[in-house]
Every structure is written in structure tokens, then in C-alpha cells.
């Protein structure tokens, strides 16, 4: 029978495991991609970006160095949320928008698990917006992968909270009226300690972001630009088309100067009121050109980065925007319990039930 591990179990062999998994036991054997493929037929539309993300995720999981049974994938509702069925671990395909809440209860009681939330732009940012922001501010030790295709796919093509304003869809034949969310800005505003963006088509980059998230103890938010070939094809084309991508995609690497453009001819510097502006490297004082610092405690810089993509992916940073450690909710909860036990002793049920004011009859 499986025992529920306490936080102090499995502390040995920490070195092999990523930072978010130090309380998870180490795997006895080396796992492979195949170990994480379930026997279920994958049923996304042909050409869906979800395939690439699933493949990258399954190939990445063995890297965690933890037993397969200690990985749990929780999802909400939507195309992306079918993913848990395809990963041969423990999983729950729950209800629309609620995956962060369910994952919170699991992570808060089971520090020996690696908990991943799979969600989409409708699931996380519309119906589940409240749970997302609160999971991030609480800093519960879960990894949230938001597949952003900027459209509702499973309900067949209505605009989503990340669709561009004016989008013509089935539910907005005259164009959508809503201003979209910028998921990175939202996550930063919600006090997230780890915020990153990647794209479905760049497996290497996607994997590197997953690795960084796993290494971050606390809530990690990863936005993955994901193409929906049926209802919103080529939504991210400016970021992938050879003629535009070099000028638009800004690759963030901690400690490295920010350079983009075909010849790396562009950099970033602070403009007015804390916003960022693009500068040609030649002819700009090198001291003013930014070196990426994901560990800057103040989120203002990361927020300024997140605003560069307006309008229409003008300049879209990908990579880890922010990676700042702070105490996690689940660790703090465990610590409160240990502290109470240390100070008051293990709870005495008989004393609790009787309370301070009793009287005897007979």
C-alpha cells in the first residue's frame, strides 16, 4: 500500500532532482519517453500544435529523475486539457477552469509529487481566471502550462480572451469587442515568481523552458504559443515565418545581452516611464543596452518586456521572463504544522474533545 509521504521523506539524493522536486523520491531506474506514453489514441486534429507539445513533454519527463507514479497531470476542459489521458502517469481531466484549484489541494497535501497543470487560453484566462491568479500569488508548487492558441477550439471556433480585438469568429461575426489579455503581463501582475513563454514549434526551446520551470520551487507559469490549424491557423505566423521571425522573436537568456534581428543588430533599452524600446546596437551606448536578468526582484522590468509584443507581435520575447524564488505555500503550510507540533505537541484528541470546561454526571 502506498503511504502518504511526509515532507521530510526522501530528502536524500537531492542533487539529482530539479529544485521543485526535492521532496519527491528519486527514480530507481532511468525512464524513457515511452514510459510516459499511455495506450490511449491521441485524438487532436491533424497538424494541431498540441502534438508537438505532448511529444516534448513526454520526452522531457524522464529528465526529472523521479518515478513515473509521482508525476501527476491535472487539466481543465478544452482541447489541450485532453493531454493527461495521453501521459502514462496519474492524471485528472477535471472541469472547466478549475485545474489550478484541484492541483492546489493535491500539491498542498502531497509534497512528494510533481504536479503539472495543463490548460488553455479559455480554460485558464476566462472561466478559470480567478484560480490561475490565486495559484500564482500563493506560489503553490505546481507547473502551469497554458496552451495559447487564441481561440476556442473544442467548442468550434469562438474568440477567446487572448484573441485580437476585432476578430471575426462564429460568435463575433461583426468582430470581437474585447481587449485581449496578455498572459505574461497577467501572470506578473498576479505575483508569479516564474513566468516564461515558448512556442510549440521550437521543441528545443520548449524543453529548456520546461526544465527551468521544474527547477523553480513554487508556481511556474509557462505560456506556450500553440497553433490551431482548424480555427485559427497561422495565428503566430509572424513569429515563425522566415522573413519576419528574426526581427520579431526576442530570445531571453538570463545573464546574456538581449539581441535580435537576423544579424543580432537590435537590442533593448529603457525608454520613457519605464517602458522598453528597441535600439540598433550600432550607434547605441552599450551601457544602455539591456542584459537580461530574470532574477530581478522587482517585476517592473519583466512587465515592460511583456509589453513589447503589442501590437501584433511587434517584438515578442520568448524564454524565462522572471525566475524569482520566494517561499511556497505548501512548504509554509507544512512548516506551520511542524511548528505547531513542536510547540504544542502532537494533537491530543481526548483533550480536544473534552475542552477546558467539563463537568461530571454520576
Amino acid at each position, binding site marked *: 500500500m502506498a503511504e502518504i509521504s511526509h515532507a521530510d521523506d526522501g530528502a536524500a539524493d537531492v542533487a539529482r532532482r530539479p529544485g521543485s522536486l526535492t521532496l519527491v523520491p528519486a527514480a530507481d531506474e532511468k525512464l524513457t519517453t515511452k514510459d510516459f506514453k499511455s495506450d490511449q489514441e491521441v485524438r487532436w486534429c491533424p497538424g494541431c500544435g498540441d502534438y508537438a507539445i505532448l511529444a516534448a513533454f513526454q520526452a522531457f519527463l524522464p529528465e526529472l529523475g523521479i518515478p*513515473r507514479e509521482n508525476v501527476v497531470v491535472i487539466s481543465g476542459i478544452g482541447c489541450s486539457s485532453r493531454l493527461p489521458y495521453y501521459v502514462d502517469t496519474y492524471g485528472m481531466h477535471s472541469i472547466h477552469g478549475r485545474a489550478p484549484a*484541484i492541483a492546489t489541494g493535491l500539491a*498542498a497535501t502531497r509534497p512528494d*509529487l510533481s504536479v503539472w497543470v495543463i490548460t488553455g487560453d479559455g480554460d485558464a484566462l476566462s472561466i478559470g481566471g480567478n484560480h490561475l491568479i490565486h495559484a500564482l500569488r500563493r506560489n503553490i508548487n505546481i507547473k502551469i502550462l497554458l496552451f495559447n492558441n487564441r481561440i476556442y477550439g473544442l467548442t468550434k471556433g469562438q474568440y477567446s480572451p487572448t484573441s485580437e480585438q476585432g476578430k471575426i469568429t462564429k460568435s463575433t461575426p461583426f468582430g470581437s469587442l474585447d481587449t485581449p489579455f496578455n498572459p505574461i503581463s497577467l501572470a506578473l501582475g498576479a505575483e508569479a515568481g516564474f513566468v516564461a513563454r515558448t512556442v510549440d514549434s521550437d521543441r528545443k526551446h520548449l524543453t529548456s523552458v520546461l526544465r527551468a520551470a521544474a527547477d523553480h520551487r513554487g508556481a511556474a507559469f509557462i505560456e506556450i504559443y500553440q497553433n490551431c490549424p482548424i480555427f485559427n491557423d497561422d495565428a503566430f505566423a509572424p513569429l515563425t515565418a522566415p522573413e519576419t521571425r528574426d526581427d520579431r522573436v526576442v530570445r531571453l537568456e538570463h545573464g546574456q545581452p538581449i539581441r535580435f534581428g537576423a544579424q543580432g543588430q537590435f537590442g533593448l533599452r529603457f525608454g520613457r516611464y519605464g517602458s522598453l524600446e528597441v535600439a540598433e546596437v550600432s550607434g547605441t551606448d552599450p551601457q544602455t543596452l539591456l542584459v537580461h536578468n530574470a532574477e530581478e526582484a522587482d517585476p517592473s522590468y519583466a512587465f515592460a518586456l511583456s509589453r513589447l509584443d503589442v501590437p501584433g507581435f511587434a517584438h515578442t520575447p520568448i524564454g524565462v521572463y522572471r525566475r524569482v524564488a520566494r517561499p511556497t505555500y505548501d512548504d509554509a503550510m507544512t512548516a506551520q504544522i511542524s511548528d505547531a507540533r513542536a510547540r504544542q505537541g502532537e494533537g491530543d484528541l481526548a483533550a480536544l474533545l473534552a475542552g477546558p*470546561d*467539563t463537568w461530571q454526571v454520576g
Partner: protein
Amino acid sequence: MTKQVQPLDRVIIRFAGDSGDGMQLAGDRFTQETATFGNDLSTLPNFPAEIRAPAGTLPGVSSFQLHFADHDILTPGDAPDVLVAMNPAALAANLPDLPRGADIIANTDEFSKRSLSRIGYSSNPLEDGSLSAYRVHAVAITSMTVKALEEFDITRKDAERAKNMFALGLLSWLYSRPTDGTVKFLESKFAAKPEIMKANIAAFQAGWNYGETTEEFSVQYEVKPASLKPGTYRNITGNTALAYGLVAAARRSGLPLFLGSYPITPASDILHELSKLKRFGVRTFQAEDEISGVGAALGAAFGGALGVTTTSGPGMALKAETIGLAASVELPLVVCDIQRAGPSTGMPTKTEQADLLMALFGRNGESPVAVLAPATPADCFDTAMEAVRIAVKYRTPVIILSDGYLANGSEPWCVPEVAQLPRLRDEFSFASPNDWRGPDGQPNFQPFLRDPQTLARPWAIPGTPGLEHRIGGIEKASGAGTISYDPANHDSMVRLRQAKIDGISADIGPLEVDDPTGDAAVLVLGWGSTFGSIGAAVRRIRLGGGSVAQAHLRYLSPLPANLGDVLRSYRKVLVPEINLGQLALLLRGRYLVDVISYNRVRGLPFRASELASVIQEVIKNG
């Protein structure tokens, strides 16, 4: 001066004042003194939802009623023998409930022309003879309190605030209550503010001394201890009993307790109580909303914890989808609905039983769950333990339908021995890899293959090698648990989920009927918090020589297996409910028995006298 001491067998007193006057605290302390003294008792706190409603107004009146006796009693009483009215509004709001001859202790300091006119009195009722049917004791409670506290280094406002302690002291003298407990309580409550502490104790003693010396009160009363069954007793409210029942269930099941909850009246005290109990390993999570509270509880249950959520009606509405998911994935989940008057926000601090049909049916699809209702404040403890037993044994959501009356009301509780509590760890086990291997030795786990006895599916928790599986709200293939849209499979799964809940009826014992003479033609059937009122009404009928049978449902889903037979064995079945006939609808639909529904939805428990006359009427028309 020695005064005459008059013995009484029971008394009902009601403290009433502004919501800021500390009436709940005075009532609580009087209750504790009374409990320690050994009387049987029952309480009814009744307060507005507003924290500080405008002072001196009718909506701002807060009251606390206590019934105590030298014998076993069942309700907080219908009509107070004594009303403490701290201001004119408290008098006006409570006067309609007072029987002629009742004592009124009125705080004359607050009966100014202005306060009187504020609630429509053109003259002072304490002086104009309009209260001649009552025994009015005009006591300058505020000014005597302030005077008694002159020597203390506190503000006039703080001195005035101690007037509830003066009133408590006076009542404590009048009914010969032990005072040590209150002094100790004040010492601890105001430990950080010694001057306030001393002032409150002084005000309390001043009230007592006033009673002893004044000629206003010529008689002191005495209510002898009740002869309850032997044991160690304490006083307990329904919410505390429910919280303790959950902690005891966690201990006896070996499961860590996880509470996901969002504050809501009148359920929040369970969250408060459990959040203190970290030394028991209890994890409390104050969620961002009701949905997250239950979602987190379900997530914890997936991981092998005892997942619990607490709420009231509006929160139940929000949790419905997650309870449906729990019914579909078949995980243990305990949902505590502390019902309050609805619909919508309704009357948050007032009691009602109108969430029954929502608990039973308020989800999309066929979504059966177990539903239990405690009968008394102390019974909340046993009901919580039983809810956990059913949840973990059958892997199902269980809804507990308590209500505002049980939540805040209190009664003496014979504290159980821990070793005698149900051993819940014998009721379930987590799935083990060894039980799920094919002939080839390879894992062949089937997450929806059921135990033939209970129809429960295996509870396989993450971290167990070889039992990796996925669950979700999509229909599952019976056995394998994979996604299935097969028509026959869905029909079968819908029926299996229902059969699992129905099967619990074999595990709960028959409904017991209290029919001492055996010749009653009328059965009174209730559920939940009406137990005391119905019981007291039934006693009245029997004392008057009448025959009537009483039965009370703790299990609303499934209903006891013998319920149909019980219903059919009486000529008339009366079903009193604090709703518009929800159980009655169910009984008529399920058993084709033409039950008589009696309903009042006033936000208050039934009066025993009211029910007694209803029962009498039904017997007469027999």
C-alpha cells in the same frame, strides 16, 4: 440581606440588545455557567447579518436565548420567562414572544426620548403602564456599570461596553449560577489588557452584588442539575462538534484532514475551529472562492487525504459542478452545507432546511451522492464521523446538511472516549499494486472495476507504482475507466453509480420509530434540526394522554430501507419542515404515501407548542 430562594424546574431567558452590545458573549457565558452547573440546556443565538447595524434600531437587535432545566430538554424553548432588554428596540423586537407574567429587565439608561421615538414609541413603555401584564424591572444598567468602574483607568466608552457583564452578573445572581468560569474567561480574554480585564470582572461582580442588595428582586431562583446519563460533559455548538467530528474521523481513519473553504455565514466557524488545529496535522486552505475550496478538497482526496469543504447555500450552488465531478470520478469528499434562509443571499444568520432537494438533485446529469443531516448540535459530531465513513468506504461525495440553528446552538455533550469511536481505518484501504497484476505479472489496473459488495471503485493514489491511471468527468468505460461514449456503457454506469448509493441503505440500519404505546395512528417524521422541536411537541401530546409516533431521518440519501414500510404502517404521516415541503415531495414521489406537510420558513426553529397543536389537529382529524 437573605432573599427567598425559589426552586424552578426550567427557565427560558433571552438576552437582547444592539448587535454591538455583547449579547452573544453574555449568552455564551451564561450558557457555560449553566453547563458547568449541570443543567441540561439548549440555546438559540439570533443575530443580524450586519456586523454593527445602526444602533438602537429594530434590524440591529441581537439576541441569545437559553433554555435550561433540571431535566432532559430538547429545544431552546418557545417563549422566554425573562427578557433582558438593553434598549427600547430590544424590547419592541422581543415583546411579541413574551408570555404574560414574564420578567422584563430593562436598561433604563437607554430608554431616552430619542431612542424611544426612533422605533416609534410615543411614550416610555416602562412608565406608561403598557407593560402591566409583565413584571418590569427597571435597572439603570449602563450608568451603574460606569459608576462601578470609576476607579479604573479606562475610557467612558470602554466602561459602557462592560454593561453586558453587569447584566450577566445580575442574571447569574438571579439564577444562582457559578461565577468562577466567567472570571477565568475574562482573565484569559483580556490578558493583554489588564485594566479592561479588571473592569469587566468588576462590572460582572457589580451586577451580581446589585441583585443581591436591591429590593427590585425579592426572589432568587434555583434550577437543580439535571440527571443526565453518567459521563463527562461539556457544552458544544453544532459547528464545533462538526469540526471535531472531522478531526476525530481523520484520526480514526489515518487520513490527513484537508479543508478547502471560503468564508460564509453560518459555516465559517468550522474553518476557524479547524485552522487552530495544526497540531493534529489539519491543513486548512482558505480558497479564493467556493469553487476553489471544493476543488482543492477533491484534489487532496485524489492524493489520499480526507478532503472536506464547508459552506452554506450560495456556496453549494457554486460547488455543484465539482460535486458532480467527484460523483463521476468516485472519490471520497465531504461537503458540509450549513443551511441558511434563502433563496440567494436570503437571511444569512437565520436557519432553514430548504437545501435538501439541491443537495439531492442539484447537479447536472444523474449524479447521486449520500446526504446526511444531524439532529442536534452535539449530533453534528457523530454525523461528521458517519459521513466520513460512508465517503471513504464507498468513494463518494457525502453532503452533510446542518443549518444555522444547529451551527450556533449548543447543548451539553457527553464526551465520547476516543477508543470507543468508530475505527474508520477498517472501512477502506488504498489500492495496492499487488492486487492488480495479470497472469504475466504485469500491472493490469482497472480503476473502475468495482468491489462487488460496496460497488466502490479502487482508491489508487498517486505515488503508487503500477496503478497509474487517468480519471475525469468524461464518461468512463466500466472497469477500464478509459473514455467511453458507448450507449450501453453509459446506461450501465449511470445505474451503477445510483446502485452504489442505494446500496448504502444496507449499511445504515433501519429507521427506528419511537411509538411507546404502539397504538399511535399518527407518525411525525422529520429530518435534521427539527428533531428537538418535534420531540418536545410529541412529549406534550403524550403528557396530555395522546398517542403519537415519532421518527427522524438522519439519512436522506439513501433513505433507510424500511422507510416505506414505516410510512405505510401509520394512518397519517405528518412531515414538519422549515421549507415548503421538500422531504414531503420526495416521500410522496417515492412511496406514494399521502403525507401531510407542515411548513414554516421564518428563519427560526419551530416552536414546540406550535407543532403540538398541529399534531393535535392531525390526530383529531384522524
